[in-house]
């Protein structure tokens, strides 16, 4: 039962006193201080509040998601570095990390990369591009968009908070497997930090999922039927369907785990009739759709990129849509392949193994469609195409490894080995992350108004691709040789060390890639005047997003276009249509601080419940309820931009473009 002290379990022991908690705290304090100093010197506090933190504009929210994801990416990369160095050093010895610390690192590495980096980047790009692609001005629920962002940020702060208060994170692996994550084996706050950061960001993701689903279904421009939607929007829709189907399972399951820990319940404990295998069943029921949520949007991005840079419409639009839908449906029926070895027996394993292999079919169909799109096209090898080509190689390698893993007898050999680790990193890096890099490069001119430096982009790509293979091919080999995952040290006699060292060298290639990307950003910003996107359509592309200026005005479209076919913008360009300039009043959502307030109260609740400070958690919960009630009383959520003003702004904008 929970603690009775006024401060719950919080004591002065919770303050940082080991080298990594001191280091982490110092870094965060320094970063915060630098930002605060900058804002004070340039007098931008109220600008930050009014223009960004309270914004309901999906373009701004998208930018904030991407900045946040980039920040979390550095944390995740640092974790990866520490793991790699440990494994390279620890042949026969202890390396430089304790076992427990090592376990905390791989746990946080996984959670951060999955929940905050990949999902953060995708929600960021979707916020920017999906409304533009469907001819909408905003998402269906602008306030909910803001709330989703801030809940994700709250979760991200909570997952890093242990550096400052608590000193320990969960050591259970990213999914907090029972019974290790139960209070019996993990009485400290680490697991609770994991649970509540996942609950907050999971809720944020669920709200965003509902938002995008309704937006894509209900807010398309007139004439844009489902089969005229761009493929990125289609795959975003599929991912959102998966989000709303799967995230409730995560919420429920981590809630049950928390009930075990907090209220002494017996869902997954050893004894009292608890059933740990049920946790595996439930958590992977969420976990598998989650990994497809991470990759399906990338497929859509690549479909668009390959079409634009092959200067051809995409081959087999209908089959690509069917493939995305098929992958979506099937991904909810394969979760047992994550625990073939738990003992469900041959019949169950056979069913799930077969369905897992069937998913390869629509995935393969996509690859053929992409290659067919390039065939007889006049391919321009800009850097997004480089990422695409790299992705084709990694997708095939990772996919083949997946087929092997899908075969239960093979899986019995390589389950939870480095072969598995190599497979899923191939998919997440080689598909999701390469997709994010490709999509960000492709849509960067739309978002910021200038193109990125191509030379540095290509160099970064080569660092990443070479680094990826140098890092992960050794892991495939090690897995085949019997190396299990999550080893903090191993016998020198195994002969594994050279492969671990090679893998670690790969990391430094990847890190060079990341540094090159940072340099690319800095250089591109410096040279932006030379690379301005004056037309709004730098790549001669096909989707509606390219019909706006770069960056678009805050209302996206002065006039909502009427769509008559697929590749709507391409058709408009062929017809040389100039729309009649009959502007109407535009209803825009107002900014609101309620998103950040509610997420803030939720954050306090999460913190209080982790430390079992009961009065504070109750107070925070009441605050959330009160804020929601206040929200429901607020009728004035929109303002009107009069048609005359729209006309004036459009005139200024087109004049500026003409110069």
């Amino acid at each position: 039962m929970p603690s009775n002290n006024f401060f719950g379990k919080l004591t002065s022991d919770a303050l940082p006193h080991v080298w990594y908690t001191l280091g982490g705290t110092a870094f965060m304090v320094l970063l915060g201080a630098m930002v605060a100093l900058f804002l004070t010197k340039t007098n931008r506090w109220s600008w930050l509040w009014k223009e960004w933190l309270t914004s309901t504009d999906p373009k701004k929210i998208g930018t904030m998601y991407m900045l946040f994801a980039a920040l979390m990416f550095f944390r995740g990369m640092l974790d990866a570095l520490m793991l790699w160095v440990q494994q390279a050093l620890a042949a026969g010895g202890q390396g430089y990390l304790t076992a427990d610390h090592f376990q905390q690192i791989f746990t946080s590495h996984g959670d951060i990369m999955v929940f905050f980096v990949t999902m953060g980047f995708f929600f960021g790009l979707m916020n920017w591009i999906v409304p533009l692609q469907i001819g909408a001005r905003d998402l269906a629920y602008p306030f909910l968009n803001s709330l989703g962002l801030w809940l994700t940020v709250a979760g991200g702060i909570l997952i890093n908070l242990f550096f400052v208060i608590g000193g320990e994170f969960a050591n259970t692996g990213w999914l907090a497997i029972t019974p290790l994550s139960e209070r019996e084996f993990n009485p400290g706050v680490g697991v609770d930090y994991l649970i509540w950061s996942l609950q907050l960001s999971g809720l944020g993701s669920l709200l965003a999922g509902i938002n995008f689903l309704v937006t894509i279904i209900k807010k398309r421009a007139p004439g844009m039927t489902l089969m005229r939607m761009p493929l990125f929007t289609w795959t975003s829709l599929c991912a959102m369907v998966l989000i709303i189907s799967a995230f409730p399972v995560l919420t429920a399951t981590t809630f049950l785990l928390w009930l075990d820990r907090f209220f002494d319940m017996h869902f997954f404990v050893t004894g009292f009739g608890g059933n740990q295998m049920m946790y595996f069943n439930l958590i992977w029921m969420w976990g598998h759709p989650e990994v497809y949520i991470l990759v399906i949007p990338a497929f859509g991005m690549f479909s668009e990129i390959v079409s634009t840079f092959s200067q051809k419409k995409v081959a087999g639009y209908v089959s690509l849509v069917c493939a995305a839908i098929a992958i979506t449906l099937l991904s909810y029926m394969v979760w047992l392949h994550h625990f073939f070895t738990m003992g469900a027996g041959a019949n169950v394993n056979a069913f799930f193994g077969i369905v897992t292999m069937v998913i390869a079919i629509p995935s393969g169909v996509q690859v053929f469609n992409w290659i067919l799109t390039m065939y007889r096209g006049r391919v321009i090898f800009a850097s997004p195409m480089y990422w695409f080509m790299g992705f084709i190689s990694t997708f095939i390698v990772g996919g083949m490894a997946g087929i092997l893993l899908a075969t239960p007898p093979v899986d019995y050999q390589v389950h939870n080995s480095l072969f598995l680790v190599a497979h899923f990193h191939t998919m997440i890096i080689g598909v999701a992350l390469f997709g994010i890099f490709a999509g960000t490069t492709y849509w960067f001119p739309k978002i910021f108004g200038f193109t990125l430096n191509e030379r540095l982009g290509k160099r970064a790509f080569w660092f990443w691709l070479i680094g990826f293979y140098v890092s992960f091919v050794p892991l495939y080999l090690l897995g085949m040789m019997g190396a299990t995952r999550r080893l903090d040290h191993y016998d020198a006699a195994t002969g594994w060390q050279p492969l671990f060292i090679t893998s670690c060298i790969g990391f430094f290639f990847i890190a060079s890639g990341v540094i090159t990307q940072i340099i690319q950003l800095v250089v591109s910003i410096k040279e932006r005047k030379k690379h301005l996107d004056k037309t709004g359509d730098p790549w001669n592309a096909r989707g509606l997003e390219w019909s706006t200026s770069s960056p678009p005005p805050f209302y996206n479209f002065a006039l909502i276009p009427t769509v008559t076919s697929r590749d709507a913008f391409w058709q408009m360009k062929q017809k040389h249509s100039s729309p009649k300039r009959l502007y109407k009043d535009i209803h825009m959502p107002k900014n609101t601080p309620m998103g950040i307030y509610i997420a803030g109260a939720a954050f306090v609740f999460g913190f209080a419940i982790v430390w079992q400070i009961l009065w504070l958690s109750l107070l925070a919960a009441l605050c959330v309820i009160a804020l929601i009630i206040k929200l429901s009383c607020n009728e004035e959520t929109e303002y009107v931009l009069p048609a005359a003003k729209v006309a004036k702004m459009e005139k200024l904008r087109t004049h500026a473009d003409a110069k």
Partner: protein
Amino acid sequence: MQTQSDVKVFGFWVYLMTDLILFCVLFATYIVLCNNTFSGPSARQLFSMQEALTETLLLLVSSFTCSLGMLAVYRKRKVPALLWFLITFCLGVAFLVVELTEFSHFLAAGAGWTRSAFLSAFFTLVGTHGLHISVGLIWMLVALVHIGLRPFTAPSISRIFRMALFWHFLDLVWVFIFTVVYGMGHLQ
């Protein structure tokens, strides 16, 4: 052309589907664990079907009165709307009272959520439903205040409709709790 109210109702419906999935996980967990009584009290021994029937009827009638209240709202008639939703509210409170009494009896008999996995699952499933009912009651109170103090507009009618939808949804979930938890528990 879809109005903003239609869009809000659709989104709320999608949210209700996610809530349904959450309940489904709790149901699945309950079914898997319902025989793990760890030598403690079982469903057959604990549950009173009369209490369960009372709770079911209270919620069913409240769902009916809620729908009548919604009709009054569509017809923009304040007093009948207030009356029907007030009755719904009272029935909802009565439901909670019966449920909490039932829980306290179990706790007194040593059949709390710490006794066995079965009881953990029972209290969590039924308790989560009760938590949703409490949220629904708070929402109903706010709606009553709005109906009383503000005129009916399309957005406000839509908001009240979503509250009513939530209430109907909770009655639907209870039908399955009555059947699967209490009914099948008693039949064992």
